[in-house]
């Protein structure tokens, strides 16, 4: 008997829901029909979409934390691909992700305030960067510059073009790799990485 009541209740709910849905659909159709065939005054809609050059750093923070070079090693190596060799820093598995969120293709340059000697110091330090596409064809590099290849930062304050054309709606990743000798500078190492961009 209980089961019959349950079925009856469910049937009632379904029936009421269907009725509400049908009435709603009918009234919508009636409303729509009022829009068709009637003469209306013409009007002009002005919509101006301005060109914009806009980027978003979807990953804008990299933190290897505090660490040191193992005492028995002559150097440590860290990068943004998840590698930490001969050191106690935290692994970081993503570089900076830059997305073109404007409506124009961009030209992208970067520069740093320091090179390996002035940033890390010690014997044979290294300070390298690499640009890779997240989506295929996101960045068209200038001639002589290859994507997916690490380059040493040689001259500070020198603007280097990394994308001749950075396409709308696409993303690239900017990776870093550091070689820290055991006799490097100590404390909080500091530098500025500047990303400049303009319409391609």
């Amino acid at each position: 008997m209980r089961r019959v009541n349950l079925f009856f209740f469910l049937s009632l709910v379904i029936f009421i829901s269907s009725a509400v849905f049908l009435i709603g659909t009918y009234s919508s159709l009636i409303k729509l029909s009022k829009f068709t065939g009637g003469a209306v005054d013409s009007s002009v809609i002005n919509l101006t979409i301005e060109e914009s050059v806009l980027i978003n750093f979807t990953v804008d923070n990299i933190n290897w934390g505090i660490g040191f070079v193992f005492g028995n090693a002559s150097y440590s190596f860290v990068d943004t691909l998840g590698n930490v060799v001969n050191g106690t820093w935290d692994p970081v598995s993503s570089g900076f992700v830059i997305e073109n969120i404007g409506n124009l293709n961009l030209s992208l340059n970067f520069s740093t305030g320091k090179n390996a000697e002035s940033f890390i110091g010690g014997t044979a330090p290294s300070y390298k960067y690499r640009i890779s596409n997240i989506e295929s064809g996101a960045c068209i590099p200038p001639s002589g510059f290859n994507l997916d290849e690490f380059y040493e930062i040689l001259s500070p304050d020198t603007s280097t073009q990394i994308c001749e054309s950075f396409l709308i709606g696409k993303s690239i990743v900017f990776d870093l790799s550091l070689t820290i000798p055991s006799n490097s500078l100590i404390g909080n190492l500091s530098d500025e990485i500047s990303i400049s961009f303009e319409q391609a």
Partner: protein
Amino acid sequence: MKKWMFVLILLSIEGAFAISGISPGSYEIDFRSFLEKNFTFNFIFDEGVVSYVYVEGDLSEYVFLDKTEISGSEKVVATLKIPDNVEIYGLNKLIIGAKQKLGNSEGIKLISDARGIIKVFVPYPGKNVKVELNVPNGNVGERLKVGLKIINQGNESVLASPIVQIFKEESRVANLNFKSVLIESLASSETYEMMNTSEMSSGVYGAVALIDYGGERFAREEDFFKLGEFFVDIIKCSKEINKIDLARFDFEVESFWNNEINDLYAEVSLGSKVFGSPIIHLKSWEKKNITIFVDSSEIKGKEVTALITLYYGGKTTSKIISLKLLNSQKNLYILLLVLLVILVLFIIYWKIVRE
């Protein structure tokens, strides 16, 4: 004993911004003596981000900014005051940028530098003409619209007399004469002529536009175009197939037609059997790979002759090729034998180790 060197180094990188940019991205103007014009750029930065505004590039000494520092998103008006005359001819690029300012900071900091552009074209002294040529692809027999855009980049008006020469394999096959046109300084003129291709054959052609405008030499521009015929070629084929009942056979076809072909299908005759492909669509000049699975299990010998036939729009293209038959069953036996040897070697090694 190992010596541990406890030298602490903090390695962190922070970006003090997320979204940054500028709108519009650029302006373009032509040079005019004593021109004074305002250009408004909307810089977009996260709230609280302080940036300094700068001018860079050609003619920067003639630009005045209404502010040199902004906080967050702000408008900046750059006023360009051009003097009577400048001697930097051609396209000049002025940059109006806003670069994020950093206070005393530690670690590696990312800073954003959004740059807007003002392009100022300064006419060359005397007569100077640039030409753009456009010849579209077509099919033999069609009339093609050959377009010219003649731009007067000099500070004098010119009478431009254009001619377009058509070449195939370094031989001139046609000449198109255009009407002469008077173009004022920094103005441009667009014109076209229809080219009859009924006497031409299919293939790749070169077009050269020459503009006589009274300068030292003609302005010149080149373009290439293709004339198509209703033909699809078979360009690449598998050279070998496995001797099995469902062997993959690949070949590539190329359309030489400047329109779509919507009803192409292929057949491969192998011995006494014929195998078909589904119907495919080819865009103009498109190359496409076709895969047909064939039964080659009953074919004897090491080689077999295959006949590929394409059917499209009432036309056919055929190609006879020789295919090497690979005995995949034999390869399987070799693989099993290798696996067996590895297994035996492993058992022997395991027994030696146990003993």
